[in-house]
């Protein structure tokens, strides 16, 4: 995709789906191309970033009016790395404000509509990023995943998105939601693209003390490695009550495809989705109540009454969970259960190499369904949040469509720092299937 093609599609589709908050002036993008190295790996490739990354000189809002006029004086490491690799940033994508949501409805810049059905949401919180990629407005996107925010919109729009191992990619310059869960990851049409992007984005960063010194393997050359004999576990509890039957069938069909590819499929037990959702909705709000305390309207940003109801709700839950007299029963209890989540995954991974599970319990919801119902909004994250709490990687990729023609996503979950294996399995699946090549008629 050229920069010209991206801008042409943006002119056509942005008014319909509202995927972007800020569109960069095309002349600025073309000027940047002039100074880029034609030999660089992503030379001239147009992309968008979720608006939760600071980009020097380019407005960054986190989808909140709090930062409506904020022009960052510095850039996120991931942006610097992509710039160095020749990729050209063309816009900042819509999202749930501060990452608070699973539908891109909690935004001060208007909901992003799902290109497959304009009466539905594109998922969230990286919903604008996913919608831009599937609509051809951008070759790829950089999302951010704290409890499912890359995987949920990837699943609901038929793209591929990677939630990396915590620390695999620098968080420097990512506007913090829940610092012990936040991860920076790529979103694109195929696993092969995601693998190439990860090779560029990954690695230790002196500006992020939690980034890992773990060596970065060559994810691209690993894609075609013969992994036959690898065991994929399907957690039985993640395929039981609450899961839409069409999603169940689509992933069972995908499992058959995986066994044809030479992988062993086994059942495993991982009975933690519900307790993991509860711990997530105590720990993440606790961390966000602390992180968002910095918005005092003194050094930058507006007044705190600019937070949305949903953001205020999360700050208050966190404030409560951390408060004197309640922190033992809520925050510390949740942190202990987080240890149990880690033990449960370790046990499952003692029986298999990779886990296969749904991304979301339903297909993309109607606009208004999640924003009007806090419990329904939480349940959208049922299969994704435990992965952030344990810190392991998960690849969301297309697994088919519902009878209504809505995309269905699945997750391949790997061991810590074993992105290479889930990417290779996903890539080998995409060589044999064509779900990921299908596009909506806009």
């Amino acid at each position, binding site marked *: 995709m050229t920069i010209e093609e991206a801008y042409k599609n943006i002119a056509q589709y942005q008014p319909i789906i509202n995927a972007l908050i800020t569109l960069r002036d095309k002349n600025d993008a073309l000027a940047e191309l002039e100074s880029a190295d034609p030999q660089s790996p992503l030379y001239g490739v147009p992309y968008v970033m979720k608006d939760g990354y600071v980009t020097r000189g380019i407005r960054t809002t986190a989808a909140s009016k709090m930062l409506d006029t904020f022009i960052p004086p510095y850039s996120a490491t991931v942006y610097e790395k992509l710039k160095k690799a020749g990729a050209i940033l063309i816009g900042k994508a819509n999202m749930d404000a501060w990452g608070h949501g699973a539908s891109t409805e909690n935004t001060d810049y208007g909901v992003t509509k799902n290109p497959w059905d304009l009466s539905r949401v594109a998922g969230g919180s990286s919903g604008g990023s996913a919608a831009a990629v599937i609509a051809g407005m951008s070759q790829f996107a950089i999302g951010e995943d704290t409890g499912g925010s890359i995987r949920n919109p990837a699943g609901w729009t038929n793209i591929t998105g990677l939630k990396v191992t915590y620390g695999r990619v620098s968080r420097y310059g990512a506007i913090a939601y829940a610092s012990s869960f936040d991860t920076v990851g790529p979103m694109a049409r195929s696993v092969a693209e995601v693998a190439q992007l990860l090779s560029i984005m990954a690695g230790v960063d002196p500006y992020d003390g939690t980034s890992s010194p773990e060596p970065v393997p060559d994810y691209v050359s690993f894609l075609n490695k013969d992994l036959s004999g690898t065991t994929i576990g399907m957690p039985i509890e993640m395929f039981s009550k609450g899961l839409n039957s069409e999603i169940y069938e689509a992933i069972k069909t995908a499992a058959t495809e995986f066994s044809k590819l030479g992988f062993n499929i086994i059942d495993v037990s991982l009975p933690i989705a519900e307790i993991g959702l*509860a711990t997530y909705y105590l720990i993440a709000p606790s961390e966000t109540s602390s992180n968002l305390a910095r918005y005092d309207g003194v050094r*930058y940003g507006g007044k705190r009454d600019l937070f949305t109801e949903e953001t205020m709700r999360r*700050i208050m839950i966190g404030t*409560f969970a951390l408060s004197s007299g309640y922190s033992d029963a809520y925050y510390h*209890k949740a942190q202990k*259960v987080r240890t149990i989540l*880690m033990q449960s995954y370790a046990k499952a991974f003692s029986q298999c190499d990779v886990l296969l599970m749904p991304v979301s319990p339903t297909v993309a919801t109607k606009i208004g369904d999640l924003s009007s119902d806090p419990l329904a909004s939480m349940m959208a994250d049922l299969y994704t949040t435990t992965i952030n709490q344990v810190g392991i990687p998960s690849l969301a990729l297309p697994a088919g469509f519902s009878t209504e023609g809505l995309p269905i996503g699945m997750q391949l979950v790997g061991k810590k720092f074993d992105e290479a294996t889930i990417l290779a399995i996903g890539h080998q699946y995409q060589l044999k299937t064509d779900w990921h090549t299908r596009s909506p008629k806009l």
Partner: protein
Amino acid sequence: MTDVQHLAKLANLSPTPSLIQPLQSGVQTTLDYAKILGSVDVSHVGVTNEITGLINVLREDQIDQSRTFTQAQALQNAPKSHNGFFMVDAILE
């Protein structure tokens, strides 16, 4: 039942009167859901704060010029500044 007006004060938030009831029920929904943790036995486990396993990540105490702001850059997003300083609301009578 939690008192959201008290929580709002602790969190330095001033929700409008029309938001009080929705916030009350929204906060309560999450805290009610969290009750399922009551059945989990945690007597034998410690807390997990983070999962990197990294300890004592330090750097040399040297100035990184590429990361320092000029005074103008530091102030460029300030809602109110005066003579090169941030202006804050008065807190004393």
